[in-house]
């Protein structure tokens, strides 16, 4: 059987040589490997220690698998506070971030300097972990839900503004061009022609932020910013693993239920 598909009378063309990517890939792999080894040494990767600790840990794990349901009534106020914080932070940050998103998009802000300034500010806020804001704000406004809400708002704004301004960037600007050609100013054209286009993506961003907030509001309590986190910090310090596992279970159920709810809402509203 002949391997040639071409007709025998045809002149055989020279075969092109395979482009040499091998060296490039090898170099990239080597770099990644070196970084990984360097980082591994840095964080003291120690698998034998884990194996050794395993026996001590079993008692803890057994405790964690038996949540203390009797503790539930005591968690209700903190649970409620977590929900309140998440709702309030979501509302405030979505109201603030919508106009900021229009200032942060090339498609809706014709002033390059203002655009660069807003973007830089947002990048800066986004690079600070939410818990860092929380620990500073706890010092400034005191322990409690207010500092937590403010930390969440700061963090949320940077996320919503980034994602919504990106969807503005990618939006077809035809209607905006038409509005400008009809004598509208930029703010008017943006409101009338661009806002309706990105409302669905804004709404789904807000719901996503709400989910993030439920999760985050359980964490920022660790530094005293209200919610379930404060409770986690308490029971953890006293090694009360039965209670800890109940709180974790509560977070789990809360987040999963709200995620399902927000997925449903997204379908209905968007």
């Amino acid at each position, binding site marked *: 059987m002949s391997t040639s598909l071409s007709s025998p009378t045809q002149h055989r063309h020279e075969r092109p040589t395979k482009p040499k990517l091998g060296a490039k890939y090898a170099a990239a792999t080597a770099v990644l490997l070196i970084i*990984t080894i*360097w*980082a*591994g040494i*840095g*964080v*003291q*990767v*120690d698998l034998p*220690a*884990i194996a050794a*600790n395993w026996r001590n*840990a079993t008692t*803890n*794990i057994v405790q*964690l698998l038996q949540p203390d349901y009797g503790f539930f009534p005591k968690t209700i106020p903190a649970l*409620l*506070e977590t929900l*309140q*914080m998440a*709702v*309030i932070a979501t*509302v405030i940050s979505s109201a603030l971030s919508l106009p900021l998103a229009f200032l942060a998009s*090339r*498609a809706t802000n014709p002033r390059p300097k203002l655009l660069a300034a807003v973007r830089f500010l947002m*990048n*800066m806020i986004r*690079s*600070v*972990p939410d*818990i*860092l804001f929380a*620990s*500073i704000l706890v*010092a*400034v*406004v*005191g322990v409690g*839900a*207010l500092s937590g809400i403010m930390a969440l708002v700061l963090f949320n704004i940077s996320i919503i503004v980034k994602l919504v301004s990106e969807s503005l*960037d*990618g939006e077809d600007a035809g209607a905006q061009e038409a509005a400008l050609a009809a004598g509208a100013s930029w703010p008017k054209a943006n409101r009338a022609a661009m806002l309706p286009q990105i409302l669905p993506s804004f709404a789904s961003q807000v719901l996503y932020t709400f989910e993030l907030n439920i*999760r*985050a509001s*359980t*964490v920022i309590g*660790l*530094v005293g910013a209200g919610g379930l986190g404060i409770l*986690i910090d308490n029971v*953890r310090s006293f090694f009360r693993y039965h209670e*800890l596992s109940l709180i*974790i279970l509560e*977070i*789990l159920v809360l*987040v*999963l239920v709200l*995620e399902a709810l927000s997925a449903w*809402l997204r379908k*209905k*509203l968007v």
Partner: protein
Amino acid sequence: MATLIAQQQPTARPVKPTTQLRTTLWLLVSLIVVAAFWSVQIKWSSLADFPSQLIKYLGLMLFPPDWSKFGEAFKATILSVQMAWIGTILGIIVSFPLSFLASRGLAPRAVNAPLRFIFAVIRAVPEVVIAILILSVTGLTPFTGALALAVGSIGTLGKWGYEAFEGVDPGPKEAVRSTGGGTLALIRWGVWPSAAPEVLSFWLYRFEINVRASAILGLIGAGGIGKMLQDNVQFRNWDAVGMLLVVVVVVTMAIDQISGAVRNKLIHGTWRAPRRAS
């Protein structure tokens, strides 16, 4: 006057439609929001002092920051980044095969469903909580932090992975099937080539998230910048906190820039994001 535009007598105007479900949902959402504001225990009056307080603390932190501990801060930051890196690598190693198994059409439903549920559960638990759980096994080391980040990464990378694999253009998949390829051939030649840029960029994105999360893990004692920060906040060394803030912002922004450039290279083929086609 308005009728001058149209040549004939005005015809009937359509009635503005209303949707009942939407209205009800909006009312419900508004009600929840009002209830939250009304019931939350906050002294809103303390907001009045906030601007002056903020200026005061910003002054304490940043004018000027205390650079004497910069060396220590730099080392702590490096450790945080190393934690994030190891966490991401371990997360990738575990989540990569799992996300194929979680994709519909690449593995049986009986395998898809439980994996997806596990991803969802992991995503529901904050990294700090994962770290507290792991802590009881490993003790307090940076490696604990890295492991917590790894577990957290499995949740998101697993989900993004199967969504990417399921979202690939069916054309190449059909082509592989039509030449008689099996599931492995399908994954290697029908799915991976289309999904690869997206998946690689998700890995980088998760690394960016882990860099931020690693700072949080320091709070429970996993080491790195978070621990140093917590210590300085506790002792109210505001000028040192200011310095740490600057270090965190600069390092995180730098990593975002690099990672963002690599992601653009992977997806668009250029280091910088392409401008919108006009």
